[in-house]
């Protein structure tokens, strides 16, 4: 009995803000200033305006969502490559400075990325990389790699030692062992950390805000944040954009939940 009461409270707390976002996104502008718990005249006009870029606030919607997508895909690919290479060394090669590398990795994982944001901005300004996607991708790759390496190495350590032996018997070099024997075996956690890196970059606000300027070049969350600086932001339109922006991460989370949660959790629990 008490269990179901707690469950109802949990659900209400969890879902209400999401419900309210959806509700507003279907609210016509005339009803925006009549608060309520349901929509009296639901409309998809906000979505139509967004998709058709039919309002000054969403003039560059497709370009901005495209920027977000390009940055997230690059971050995903580069993080997966770097972490796959690194995890092979960390888990399968007993080399001398390994502890040193893992300490540096953990340090990067833990230090709040915002602490490095101002020097990072300066650095990108020095290299004339402000307003390029490359700058944001570099930041995302830097901050998403440590966790990716952690999860991958953790998984790779549980693989049997026969991989290297099989490679040695075939006379394969270390690169062949990596590509033909190691990579196929780490596919599940590689999917997990690829998704993680994609979502990390897709959700990023601070670095995108600092490094990108100009309506057609910013990412979607930065554009949405800019809505707030105007006095009469069209909140129903903003919520339609919010909903569209939330769909890819929510879909990815639920599709890859199995991988994400187990990767995450094995990292956290084995860390103790």
């Amino acid at each position, binding site marked *: 009995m008490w*269990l179901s009461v707690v469950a109802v409270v949990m659900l209400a707390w*969890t879902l209400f803000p999401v419900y309210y976002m959806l509700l507003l996104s279907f609210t016509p502008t005339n009803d925006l200033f009549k608060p309520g718990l349901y929509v009296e005249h639901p409309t998809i006009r906000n979505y139509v305006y967004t998709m058709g870029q039919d309002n000054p606030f969403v003039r560059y919607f497709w370009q901005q969502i495209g920027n977000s997508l390009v940055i997230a895909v690059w971050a995903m690919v580069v993080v997966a490559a770097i972490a796959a290479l690194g995890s092979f*060394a960390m888990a399968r090669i007993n080399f001398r400075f390994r502890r040193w590398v893992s300490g540096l990795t*953990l340090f990067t994982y833990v230090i709040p990325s915002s*602490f490095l944001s101002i020097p990072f901005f300066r650095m990108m300004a020095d290299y004339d990389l402000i307003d390029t996607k490359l700058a944001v991708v570099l930041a995302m790759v830097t901050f998403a790699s440590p966790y990716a390496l952690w999860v991958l190495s953790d998984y790779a350590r549980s693989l049997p030692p026969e991989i290297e032996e099989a490679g040695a018997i075939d006379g394969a070099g270390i690169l062949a062992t990596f590509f033909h024997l190691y990579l196929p075996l780490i596919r599940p956690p590689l999917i997990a950390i690829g998704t993680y890196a994609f979502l990390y970059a897709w959700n990023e606000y601070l670095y995108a805000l600092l490094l990108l300027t100009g309506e057609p070049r910013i990412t979607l969350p930065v554009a949405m944040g800019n809505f707030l600086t105007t006095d009469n932001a069209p909140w129903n339109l903003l919520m339609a954009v919010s909903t569209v922006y939330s769909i890819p991460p929510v879909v990815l989370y639920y599709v890859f939940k199995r991988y994400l949660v187990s990767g995450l959790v094995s990292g*956290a629990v084995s860390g103790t």
Partner: protein
Amino acid sequence: MRTTVRGRLLRSRTLHGFLFTAPLLLLFAAFVIYPMTMGVWFALDADAYRALFSDPIFRQTVINTLWYVGVAVNVKLVLALLLSGILDYPFRWIRLLAALFLIPWAIPALPGILSFRWMLNSQWGIFNHLLTLLGLPSVPWLAQYWTALGAVMVFHIWKYLPFWTIIFLAGRRAIPNELYEAAAIDGASSVQNFWHVTFPLLRNLYLICTLLSMVFTLGDFTVPWLMTGGAPGDSTHVLATLAYRYTFTMGRLEWGMATFAVAMPATLLFIGMLLRWVKM
């Protein structure tokens, strides 16, 4: 002969180790160590600290950050620990509940913050609408200090509670069932179970999570910036948002760097503790 073979093997291992971690090391050298050194260099300016400590907004910001990190993180983790017990019940509907409970974690922070902001809007928000229906006076949620800071903390809890709950749930599942069976034979109640079996075994995990979450929250920018932006009147800044204001609104780069430098000793202490506890 044997030693030279081994020596060569060791050397080639070290070489391979470095080659495979080279991209990672280059990345950290270029984008972590170099900017950090640069930050320390800029933060070596004694005038900046004098300016910061005589700025009442800075002092207020330090207090806000302590509130944010101290209260939001701990309330969140206690709730996560308790709720992980609920999600551990072996009923089918609990699994559905757990899946729905993950939504705030899956949604990016920004849409959630926007939804909260509109709910808290003093004229057209749902909260004040309901208060008015109940005959109570409406509250200018984001326009007064305590409720604005509270909104930042509540949002933080809403967004990150599911993540930590899942972590603790995994911790609970790693506890061998025999321990609970033994406790059941001794006639332990569920409260006793928690204090004598679950909590002692989760204590390490709990401490590590507390440290991690505190360091992450210490540098949080997105939630306070988009929820209040420092309003009302720059009273609800945290370190990251104030550093942004110093650097980009006021053009005082060295003040911005110094703001983060002030938090570095505590951060490094936390990191040092974590490095000792967490093995990678």
